[in-house]
C-alpha cells in the first residue's frame, strides 16, 4: 500500500508548472465591482495585444495588501501589475518599489487626470500609479424620512444641522436610526471616518514637531460629538459596524443618514439590492459651522508596476488601457454610463451622458476637487493625508487608536480615557519610529 502511495505522491509532485505564453502578466487586484467588470472586459485588450496573456489574482483588500507588501518588499517578483491605494503609492514610490509611469502610450492624456488624484500619486513630479477609480465621502440621506420629520438637509450642512436632523429622523420604535456611522475598529474603517471628521473640526493628528494631538480640545470635541450622536441616534451595536454593515442597514431602510464613501451611492441606488433606491438624497461632507474645511476624504484604487519587473513595457500597455478614456467609453457602451469608473478623469465629468446617468456625479467631483492633501485641516500639519495620514506607521497606529475609539463607542471606556490612551500609544509608536524625521 505504501508503495502505491509513494508513487502517487511522486506523480502528484511532478505536476509542477504550467506552460507560459509569450508574456504573461500577473495582475493582483481587489474584489470590487469596478475591478470585476474590468476582468470581464479584457478581451478588448487581448484582442489588440495577442502576445500578452493576463492572469488575475483577486483577493480581499487586507489579504491583498499583506500579500503584495511582502512580495514587493522582498522583490519576490510574483506580480507584474499591482492594485494599490493612494495611501501606499507615495510611501512605496519613496522606497523605490514602484516603476515611474513615464512614456505611457500615445493618447493616454495624463493631463486629463483629476489634479487632486494625480498629485497624490506623484512623487517629485513623476506619476507612479495610474488611477482606476477614485472616491470621496458625502452624506446620503433618506428624502422620505427627512420630509416626514420636517427637516431639510442643506447641500452644505454643518455638524450641528446633521445632529439636529438625526434627532428628528430617529424613530427607534420602528427601528429607524437617525444616523449610521462607522464604528468598527481599523485604520480603514472607523478611523477613516473619524480622521475626516476631526480634520473638518480643525483637529489634526500631529503638530509640526510630529507630536500627537489627541490631548487637544479639537479632538475632544470631535470624539464627544461623534459618541453623542451615535449613542442617541445611532443603531445598536454600532461599534462593530463598518462600511458593509452600514450599507446593509441603509439599504433596508434603517438609517436616516449615512456619511461614507461616495462609492456607496451606486449601491444604495441599485433597485435590485436596495429597498430605498429611489429615496436617497445627497449632501456634502459636513463642516464646523462657519468654517471652510469639509473633512477631506480621498481614496483611489490605482494600478502600479513594481520596480525591477522585466515586463514593464507590457505592463504599461495594460495599465494605460485600463485607465484610459477609451476604457471608460467601452464600459459605457457595454453597461451604460452609470457603471463608468468614477473619480479619475476630468473628461468624464464634462460628459453630459454621464451626468444624466449618475445623479451623484456632481457631489463626487465637488468633493474630490475640494481635496488638498497637503492641507487636510485648517491647522498646519507636517503630513500629507485626508482620511488617512501618509506615513508607513499609520496602519498600525490608526488601528490601535481605532480600537480605543471603538471601545468608547461600546461604552467600555470614557471619551477622555480613550483619548488619553490614544495619545499615549501614538506617542510611544512615533518615538519608536524615530520621529521627528
Amino acid at each position, binding site marked *: 500500500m505504501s508503495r502505491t502511495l509513494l508513487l502517487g505522491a511522486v506523480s502528484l*509532485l511532478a505536476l509542477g508548472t*504550467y506552460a507560459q505564453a509569450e508574456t504573461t502578466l500577473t495582475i493582483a487586484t481587489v474584489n470590487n465591482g469596478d475591478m470585476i467588470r474590468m476582468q470581464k472586459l479584457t478581451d478588448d485588450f487581448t484582442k489588440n495585444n495577442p502576445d500578452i496573456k493576463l492572469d488575475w489574482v483577486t483577493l480581499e483588500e487586507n489579504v491583498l495588501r499583506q500579500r503584495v507588501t511582502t512580495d514587493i518588499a522582498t522583490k*519576490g517578483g510574483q506580480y507584474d501589475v499591482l492594485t494599490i491605494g493612494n495611501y501606499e503609492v507615495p510611501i512605496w514610490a519613496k522606497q523605490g518599489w514602484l516603476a515611474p509611469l513615464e512614456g505611457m502610450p500615445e493618447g493616454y492624456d495624463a493631463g486629463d487626470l483629476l489634479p487632486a488624484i494625480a498629485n497624490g500619486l506623484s512623487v517629485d513630479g513623476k506619476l507612479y500609479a495610474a488611477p482606476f477609480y477614485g472616491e470621496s465621502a458625502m452624506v446620503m440621506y433618506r428624502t422620505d424620512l427627512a420630509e416626514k420629520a420636517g427637516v431639510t438637509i442643506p447641500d452644505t450642512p454643518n455638524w450641528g444641522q446633521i445632529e439636529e436632523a438625526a434627532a428628528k429622523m430617529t424613530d427607534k420604535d420602528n427601528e429607524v436610526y437617525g444616523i449610521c456611522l462607522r464604528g468598527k475598529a481599523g485604520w480603514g474603517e472607523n478611523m477613516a471616518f473619524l480622521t475626516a471628521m476631526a480634520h473638518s473640526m480643525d483637529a489634526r493628528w500631529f503638530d509640526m514637531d510630529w507630536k500627537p494631538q489627541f490631548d487637544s480640545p479639537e479632538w475632544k470635541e470631535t470624539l464627544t460629538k461623534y459618541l453623542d450622536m451615535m449613542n442617541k441616534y445611532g443603531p445598536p451595536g454600532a461599534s462593530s459596524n463598518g462600511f458593509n454593515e452600514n450599507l446593509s442597514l441603509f439599504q433596508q431602510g434603517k438609517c436616516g443618514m449615512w456619511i461614507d464613501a461616495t462609492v456607496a451611492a451606486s449601491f444604495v441606488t441599485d433597485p435590485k439590492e436596495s429597498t430605498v433606491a429611489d429615496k436617497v438624497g445627497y449632501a456634502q461632507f459636513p463642516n464646523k459651522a462657519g468654517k471652510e474645511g469639509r473633512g477631506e476624504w480621498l481614496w483611489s484604487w490605482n494600478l502600479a508596476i513594481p520596480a525591477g519587473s522585466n515586463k514593464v513595457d507590457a505592463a504599461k500597455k495594460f495599465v494605460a488601457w485600463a485607465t484610459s478614456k477609451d476604457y471608460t467609453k467601452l464600459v459605457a457602451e457595454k453597461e451604460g454610463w452609470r457603471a463608468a469608473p468614477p473619480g479619475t478623469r476630468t473628461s468624464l465629468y464634462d460628459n453630459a451622458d454621464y451626468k444624466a446617468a449618475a445623479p451623484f456625479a456632481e457631489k463626487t467631483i465637488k468633493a474630490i476637487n475640494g481635496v488638498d492633501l497637503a492641507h487636510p485641516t485648517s491647522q498646519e500639519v507636517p503630513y500629507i493625508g485626508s482620511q488617512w495620514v501618509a506615513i508607513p506607521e499609520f496602519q498600525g497606529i490608526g488601528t490601535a487608536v481605532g480600537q480605543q475609539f471603538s471601545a468608547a463607542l461600546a461604552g467600555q471606556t470614557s471619551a477622555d480615557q480613550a483619548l488619553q490612551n490614544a495619545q499615549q500609544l501614538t506617542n510611544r509608536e512615533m518615538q519608536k519610529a524615530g520621529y521627528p524625521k
Partner: protein
Amino acid sequence: MARAVSTRRKITFTVIAWVIGIAIFFPILWTILTSFKTEGEAIASPPSFLFFDWTLENYTTVQERSNYFLHFWNSVVISLGSTVLGLIIAIPAAWSMAFVPGKRTKDVLMWMLSTKMLPPVGVLIPIYLLFRDAGLLDTRTGLVVVLTLMNLPIIVWMLYTYFREIPGEILEAARMDGAGLREEIIYILTPMAVPGIASTLLLNVILAWNEAFWTLNLTAANAAPLTAFIASYSSPEGLFYAKLSAASTMAIAPILILGWFSQKQLVRGLTFGAVK
C-alpha cells in the same frame, strides 16, 4: 456487560447530542443556505430561513469568474502531497521513538511540538526569501514542502501514540523470524497500525485543505488552492455575502463529502487504543 440505560435517559442524551450537533453544524448550514439567496436576501433582517426565492445565480457567477477546477486540483495536490510526504517521513520516525526510545526521545517530541508554538507569520519573510531564491514561489511543490513541515509534528505525535499501543513483542517475534527493518515496518507494523495511519492521513488532509496562511501568502496565479478562491470573494466595500457563501460551499464540499464517507475510519482511528 453493558449497563442498562433507561429509555428516558436515552432520549435525553439523544436530544442533547442532536442539539449540540446542530449548533455546531449550523454556521455551515447557514453558509449553504445563503449561497442560494440573492445578495439582497442574504443581508435581509430578519433573515428568511427556507422561504426565499432559491437561485443558482451565485454559482453561475462564481463559475464564470473563477477557474474552480484549477484551484480544486491545486488543493487536492497540495493536501494529499503534503500528507503523504509527511507520512513517509513520520512512520520511520514514530517507529524509532515508540520502539527504540533513547534518553532524549521525550525531549525531541516536545521540541517538535514546540515548533508549532511560533506564529507562522514570524517566519514569513525568511521563508519567502528562501522560496524566492529557490524558485518555489507560486508552485505546488513549494506548498507541499511547507505544509509537510507544518503538519509533521502532528503526524509524528499521532503515529507515535498509535504505535505505542502495539505490543513490541510482535515486532520482536518478526525479527526472530528473520524480518529486516524494512519488512518489519512495511509488513508487520504498518498493517497493524492501519486505522491509526488512516485517521492521521484523513486529519492531515483536512488540516492541509483548510490551511489559509501559507497557501495565501506563497501563491499567486498558478498554485493558488481553494483558500485563495474563497478569499477572492470577500470585500470590505460592497455586498458579497451570497457569492462568498457559494464559493465557500464549493470549497468545502469535497472535504465534507470525504469526511462523511470516512467518518467510521476517522472515529475508529481517533479512539484507537482508548479502550484496552
